[in-house]
């Protein structure tokens, strides 16, 4: 094998509220009060960062972390990825972005990506808060590309990317020339932990903070007003009514079969 070609990678990372934490929504516009809850890097995005780090071990190149969200919290999410070994960060932050939906987010990310040179963009297959999974393919299309979604295996060689796309009962092998945009699923790798050295060195790394104007964003396309979907009601899910709990005394299976039959499952 000759010298590996340079592969520059951008990983899109989102900060999300911790699943275990209680969420509060702003009663006026139903957006998440992101500062009132514990937040973490979207768990699936950790796999995206790890995949980039693994590629970098083989190919030369730079890893840029791209996040859209408010400061300072989202800067911390970017720093977390830098501590793992990514090279630099890009944070798009602007009050006018508040309340952007998946499509508006994809629009902003596409404009941010227009500012960097990349061979590969990696996203998570979905975020745990909204879980829409809409951003990766919307971003692909806005960039005039097709996103290779739901990779459970990813390989880059000779200017080509090949993924195993997770599907029901198996997978498809998908190929594309670089540059490409890929989303990865949980389990594609085993994310590493940050070392103390990594955390220290992350403080020195550059995080470029960009405003809407820096990217030439059309305000009519973003935020609550620019988003084409709107939330009109949000209420905590009422707790489930607990039903019968039976202790098995040898006939538990009969009682359960009765229950299933009464409810017409057999």
């Amino acid at each position, binding site marked *: 094998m000759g010298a590996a070609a340079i592969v520059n990678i951008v990983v899109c990372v989102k900060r999300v509220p911790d*699943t275990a934490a209680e*969420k509060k929504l702003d009663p006026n516009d*139903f957006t998440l009060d992101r500062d009132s809850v514990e937040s973490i890097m979207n768990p*699936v995005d950790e796999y995206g960062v790890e995949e980039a780090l693994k590629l970098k071990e083989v190919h030369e190149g730079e890893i840029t972390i791209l996040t859209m969200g408010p400061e300072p919290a989202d800067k911390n999410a970017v720093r977390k990825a830098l501590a793992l070994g990514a090279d630099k960060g890009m944070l798009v932050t602007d009050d006018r972005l508040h309340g952007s939906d*998946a*499509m508006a987010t*994809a629009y902003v990310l596409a404009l941010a990506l227009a500012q960097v040179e990349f061979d590969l963009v990696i996203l998570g297959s979905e975020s*745990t*808060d909204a*879980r*829409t*999974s*809409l*951003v990766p*393919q*919307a971003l*692909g*299309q806005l960039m*005039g*590309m*097709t996103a*290779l*979604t739901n990779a459970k295996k990813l390989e880059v060689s000779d200017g080509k990317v090949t993924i*195993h796309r997770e*599907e*029901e*009962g*198996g997978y*498809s*092998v*998908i*190929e*594309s*020339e670089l540059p490409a945009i890929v989303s990865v699923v*949980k389990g594609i790798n085993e994310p590493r932990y940050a070392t103390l050295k990594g955390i220290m060195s992350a403080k020195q790394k550059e995080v470029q903070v960009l405003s809407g104007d820096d990217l030439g964003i059309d305000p009519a396309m973003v935020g609550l007003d620019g988003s*084409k*979907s*709107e939330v*009109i*009601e*949000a*209420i*905590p*899910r009422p707790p*489930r*009514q*607990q*039903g*019968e*709990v*039976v202790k098995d005394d040898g006939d*538990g*299976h*009969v009682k*359960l*079969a009765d*229950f*299933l039959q009464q*409810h017409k*499952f057999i």
Partner: protein
Amino acid sequence: MGELWVVVDHEKGEPKKVSFQMLSAGRRIAEKLGHDLVGVFAGTGFEAAKEKLAKYGAGKVLVAESEEVEGYLVQPSVDLLTKLVQERSPEVVLFASVPYGKDLASGVAAKVGAGILADVVDIEPQDGGLVCAMSVFGGAMNTKCRIKGTPQIICVKPNAFVAEEAPAEAAEERIEVQVSDDAKRVKIADRVQQEAGGRPGVEEASIIVSGGRGLGGPENFRIVEELADVIGAAVGASRAAVDAGWYPHQHQVGQTGKTVSPQLYIAVGISGAIQHRAGMQTSKTIVAINKDADAPIFGLTDFGLVGDLFKVVPALTEELKKRKGG
């Protein structure tokens, strides 16, 4: 009078159940709004699908059949649907809220600049528009949303709607398919089937039986599979079981797996950690089998059985076989 489109989710002409569910929901909405219900079929195998779709109300179907489309990932279909939407301006387009359907839908929405909602479980016409319901934050919050402008692109969660027959006369309009060079950049080189067919996938299934760490090892997933097969269920798994390598990841239910809302969810040897609940707590009926009476999963159940799964589950499987037979 506008049109409401249902983009048929199918495997080589065999429609997925969600397609019939979307047609039934679509018909109800179209009637209320005075729209025409139109099916959209892209791919191959329409002859096999035709009668079935008509039975659920898809009188008119736009048919774009092409072998070529199958060789490339989503782009030929995204381009085709984008063109159709731009030419014919439907009011509403329904897609299946499954990975492939969402890829298509978000691709089309991005290209036509339309609003889109995913994981929708209810749709109500209101003030001339549509109000869609979905749950977010792992089922912790129920929200209602609206889309501004048209077309309104809505991804419908499998099993959210009941499929009802409403025979219509089959009529098709053939659409010419052109695959551009750009659409050929991302190729499908191979399809690998790892699991025997026959069992439904977790996202589509109306019943799911899931196994967790309580099973103790990969070989014991057989116990779960046997129960699943008597009741026509899909097999799910907790993260603990998947991470241990006992079952493939595409079966994982929860925060970092699939979010499901089947009619019936049976948790076997699963404690019910919040990250697991995030993927299944919107199931209509929940049953758990666990030897620990304090397991948090019992906080969600309609029927809980405290007992040893190695005794209870095989006995249940036999009991159900007996009842089905007699």
